[in-house]
């Protein structure tokens, strides 16, 4: 008998949380497991709140916490009870953190807080508690001017929807993403989990569309094969595929010569074509987020992690348009050469 609460990790819709917060919680669980935080729990052990009172029982307490965190992380990844398991994982981290003075790896307090505040967020509306968390992240007695700017932009993201809130969100996301890379470079590899938590937490600021209309060249075999491939990773049915010339708005549908082998998306009123459309789709696929998080978490060295982060940020930024668009056109022009490979994947 199927257990109705079980689900694939890549499905983020239809949970008690908004999709971007469900994805955030799952990415944190993945980073927690992939960076080996489980084995590090309470290691070394040194009583802080005298829990447990008898130091001899420390190993049992440690094993119990590890089991608790493992079950919570698995539950977070593989069930629809995201709110419950996010709270359980946060509680396990908080208990480990508070009970041992020696166990204070950077990032755990932030991860526990992001999980808790995500779990406390409503299904609808902007997650303002998490915006406040980001503002607080950059406010401390030794804050630099750039950190005060990032704190102000994260706080301003809570403003009612409008131009000011959009600018603040953009500044908070890109400023934080770049600054966290710099901070990782400055403070060293021990802060890897903090880096991953802070980067995953930026999902908070990104509105998640209910659907993305994808217009493709219905007469192109390569496009149809691409559609079948992309659909395999679209576990939430986010993409609404429409063959061009079959219902696309007149001002949107490109001329036949442009349509040949090209792709376009419409997300919340924004129309993107070619490379931008491909990036729009990839950025909203939870599977891509999992792959990026896993690659960052398993990067063997600080340099490798930073290089990978730089590549990802470049691809997601408008800077990559200058390379991405010609590359997309090149692929589209030679699409018939890739068709056999794509078809063999079916």
């Amino acid at each position, binding site marked *: 008998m199927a257990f109705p609460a079980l689900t694939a990790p890549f499905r983020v819709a239809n949970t008690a949380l908004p999709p971007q917060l469900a994805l955030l919680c799952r990415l944190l669980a993945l980073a927690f497991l992939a960076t080996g935080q489980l084995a590090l729990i309470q290691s070394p052990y040194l009583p802080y709140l005298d829990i447990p009172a008898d130091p001899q029982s420390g190993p049992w307490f440690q094993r119990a916490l590890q089991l608790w965190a493992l079950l919570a992380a698995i539950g977070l990844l593989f069930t629809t009870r995201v709110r419950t398991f996010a709270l359980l994982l946060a509680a396990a981290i908080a208990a480990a953190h508070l009970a041992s003075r020696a166990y204070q790896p950077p990032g755990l*307090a932030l991860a526990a807080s992001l999980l808790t*505040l995500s779990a*406390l967020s409503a299904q609808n509306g902007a997650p303002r*508690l998490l915006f406040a968390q980001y503002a*607080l992240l950059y406010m401390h007695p030794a804050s630099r001017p750039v950190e005060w700017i990032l704190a102000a932009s994260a706080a301003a993201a809570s403003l009612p929807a409008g131009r000011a809130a959009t600018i603040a969100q953009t500044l908070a996301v890109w400023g934080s993403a770049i600054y966290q890379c710099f901070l990782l470079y400055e*403070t060293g590899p021990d802060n890897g989990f903090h880096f991953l938590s802070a980067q995953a937490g930026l999902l908070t600021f990104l509105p998640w569309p209910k659907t993305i209309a994808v217009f493709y060249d219905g007469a192109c075999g390569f496009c149809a094969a691409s559609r079948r491939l992309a659909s395999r990773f679209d576990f939430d049915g986010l993409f609404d595929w429409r063959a061009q010339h079959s219902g696309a708005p007149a001002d949107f549908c490109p001329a036949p010569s442009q349509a040949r082998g090209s792709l376009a998306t419409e997300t919340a009123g924004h129309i993107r074509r070619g490379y931008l459309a491909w990036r729009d789709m990839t950025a909203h696929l939870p599977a891509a987020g999992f792959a990026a998080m896993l690659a960052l978490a398993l990067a063997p060295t600080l340099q490798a992690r930073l290089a990978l982060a730089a590549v990802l940020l470049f691809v997601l930024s408008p800077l990559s348009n200058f390379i991405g668009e010609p590359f997309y056109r090149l692929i589209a022009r030679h699409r018939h050469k890739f068709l056999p490979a794509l078809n063999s994947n079916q």
Partner: protein
Amino acid sequence: MRLRLAAGLCLLAFEAFGVFTARLPLAPSRTRTRYVIGAAVGTEGLTEDQMERRYRLPAEGVFAGEPAALFDRIERAEAAFEKYGRSRVYVRYAVDGGPEQQWRFPH
């Protein structure tokens, strides 16, 4: 919903208190403290291995954080493992490449 909002605000208030009193490091510390620990219980000096097991730190190294956090950890360890107050600890340290300083336990 209001209950969840209130719980979230309480958590943020707790964090703000922790951050501004330097008890809850949300962001990684940029301070580096280079240190050397010497310790004895009664008249017997501790070896480097014994100190590492006791403080969960190498006897000599670089601590990622403020020296106060390092001293706090040593004090906690002494409170947990030496109930009779016979231990003496001596730390030489330098913060971010600054001048060398000393710290003793008990004070």
